[in-house]
């Protein structure tokens, strides 16, 4: 019996030895953008007059989108080795690996019934030598730019696991004129600056525009009977209305995640508190009753929590409460004044503006206040707004006026969550108060 036991133990030792596997931990990697080859989409010779320009522009927009996000590097087209249409069916992967491409985008354009544009694209993993995404989109030819953004979104989503944000728009306040006599117009553009248009003429001052997450509708602040009021504007129909007729000032409006409510501040007798209004019934509910100034409310993506800022503790800080106003709790604790808290669409972070030691920073913290990270600091900047995938923030930055009263500017910027890839968003005039839309449906 004892011998049998020994034999078992010895055989186990041999098994263990035979299957001993070398394990190596890879805890660091290459942070460089992923090299992607984006080819011009092919088309039939008979359609060349109409599709030549679209093919060229489409791949340029896809490349620009992917490059701008900072996670991808588009390889120069001059470096491409394979250039024939066969690549769309089966690329010569070794040719693409030779130019260091880890992913390849190919496509084909075709004009179909009633001159509609049929766009077919494929995404290839050049190292695994397989197709990893394929899609066909049909639209009118003048809609090629949106198609480009949608393709970029698909590539981004497939290679990062995160939803894209290229087929989106940014709403902001366009500014012009001297600082003491600023003209402010409500404006909208694609996230890459294209398709820009002004929504208001500039006669009335406009502030803090915000998108409805589920509809082509915006809410913003303007003046009505010389009092700041919250407005609703349908950007498809142009219909505009004042939200409620309150005795005091209303400001800092924002939609709930389902678009059915507007949460805002209402100032009465010098005291500002947070109210929520059901848009259908126009029923208003007061959520805070503190004697301090409570403002800048923002819903969590599930609608169960609200973050806001308040000076009830002596300085402006960030608080979180339930959606009925209960369990109000301060979460910011690192010193300095905090403002404009905005809950991330992913739900894991709250972005804010922080005034500390004479400069303004845009930062993020976890929803319990831990893990504060300042992404960018400058003389003056504020009003962060999340991209729909919760990866990028847009905000605006001002420069000071010099002694001659010149030099003031206000510009839009974006920065990703890592704190890298800070980019200026070009606008025809100065800009402030940006708000990022959800993906267009």
């Amino acid at each position, binding site marked *: 019996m004892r011998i049998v036991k020994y034999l078992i133990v010895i055989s186990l030792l041999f098994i263990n030895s035979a299957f001993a596997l070398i394990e190596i*931990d890879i805890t660091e*990697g290459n942070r460089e953008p992923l090299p992607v080859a984006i080819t011009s989409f092919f088309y039939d010779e008979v359609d060349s007059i109409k599709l030549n320009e679209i093919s060229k522009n489409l791949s340029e927009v896809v490349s620009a989108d992917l490059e701008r996000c900072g996670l991808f590097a588009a390889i120069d087209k001059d470096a491409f080795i394979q250039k024939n249409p066969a690549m769309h069916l089966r690329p010569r992967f070794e040719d693409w690996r030779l130019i260091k491409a880890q992913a390849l985008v190919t496509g084909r354009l075709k004009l179909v019934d009633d001159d509609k544009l049929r766009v077919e694209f494929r995404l290839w993993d050049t190292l695994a030598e397989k197709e990893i995404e394929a899609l066909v989109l049909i639209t009118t030819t003048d809609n090629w730019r949106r198609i480009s953004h949608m393709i970029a979104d698909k590539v981004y989503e497939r290679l990062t696991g995160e939803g894209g944000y290229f087929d989106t728009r940014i709403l902001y306040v366009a500014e012009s004129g001297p600082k003491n006599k600023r003209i402010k117009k409500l404006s909208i553009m694609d996230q890459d600056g294209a398709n820009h248009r002004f929504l208001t003429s500039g006669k009335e001052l406009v502030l803090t525009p915000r998108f409805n997450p589920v509809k082509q509708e915006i809410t913003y602040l303007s003046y009505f009977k010389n009092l700041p009021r919250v407005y609703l504007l349908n950007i498809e129909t142009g219909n505009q209305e004042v939200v409620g007729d309150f005795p005091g000032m209303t400001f800092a409006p924002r939609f709930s995640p389902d678009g059915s409510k507007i949460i805002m501040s209402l100032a009465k007798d010098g005291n500002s508190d947070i109210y929520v209004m059901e848009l259908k019934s126009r029923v208003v509910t007061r959520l805070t009753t503190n004697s301090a100034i409570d403002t800048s409310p923002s819903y969590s993506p599930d609608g169960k929590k609200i973050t806001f800022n308040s000076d009830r503790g002596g300085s402006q800080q960030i608080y979180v409460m339930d959606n009925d106003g209960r369990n109000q709790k301060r979460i910011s604790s690192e010193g300095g004044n905090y403002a404009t808290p905005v809950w991330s669409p992913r739900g894991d972070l709250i972005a804010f503006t922080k005034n500390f030691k004479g400069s303004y920073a845009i930062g993020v913290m976890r929803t319990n206040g831990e893990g504060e990270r300042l992404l960018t600091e400058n003389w003056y900047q504020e009003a962060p707004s999340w991209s729909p995938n919760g990866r990028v923030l847009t905000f605006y930055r001002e420069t000071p006026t010099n002694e001659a009263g010149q030099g003031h500017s206000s510009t839009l910027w974006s920065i990703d969550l*890592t704190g890298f890839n800070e980019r200026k968003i070009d606008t025809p005039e100065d800009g402030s108060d940006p708000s990022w839309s959800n993906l267009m449906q």
Partner: protein
Amino acid sequence: MQFSIITSSLLHVGFIIFTILGLPIFNNPNVDIPPIIQVEILEITEQTNVPEISKREVEEKKIEEKKKDNVKINQPIMKPKIEKSDEKVKDPAPEEEIIKPETIAEKNIVNMPIRKPVLKKKDNFDELKIAELIDMAQDTKPIEDAKDEEYESLDSTETLSDKLTLSEEDAIRSQFLRCWSVPLGIKYDDSMVVKVKITLKQDGSLMKPPEVTDHQRMNKPSEKYFKVLAESALRAVRRCDPIKAPAADRYDKWKDMQLSFDPRELLR
């Protein structure tokens, strides 16, 4: 009859008298029996912190004592301290013969059985033992071939030889670090570690496609971040193909490998 009895009796008596007078054991001298001294036995560790003398030191002392006792041996005696290789190089020939540093260098240190330089403790000095030591001192064979029962191998010897050296591991790791483009967009949690099994040829190229150990997780719709991370790991392995392989004579040790791609430090 009576004569016989009387004669026998006289002879017996005479024999007994001779025995008593002649044999020394019956000569019982007066011995001073030492008085009984009471001794209290105490545990020495309770009384002192003096470290216990190691077996090795005891044996060294014994050897030294015997040397002093003029044990006439013409051969040099091996010093138990063999780790000072520098000194040995400078020492005259007999010492060099004990262990040649270059002999050690030629051998793979990892494969070398680790010996405990512990000598058996014996109560009495044994000249044969010294002779054995001398024989061993003259032995120029590599250490691993010596099968002296007085030297014991550590149990961990086999485990050590199964592994790559740290520098070999680092060399492999650094290659994959350069090849891995970390998908910085993914949402991190503690379970986001991808383990990839690879099998390599002797030239360091992949023998078969790399395999994610938890490949079922990749196909779950709710695990899109894991899928992206796993795909990035597979791309890294393919991008690094072929890797600069460690020594070919140890191919069976690194033929199969498991790589753990852990983006914790980059994404947290």
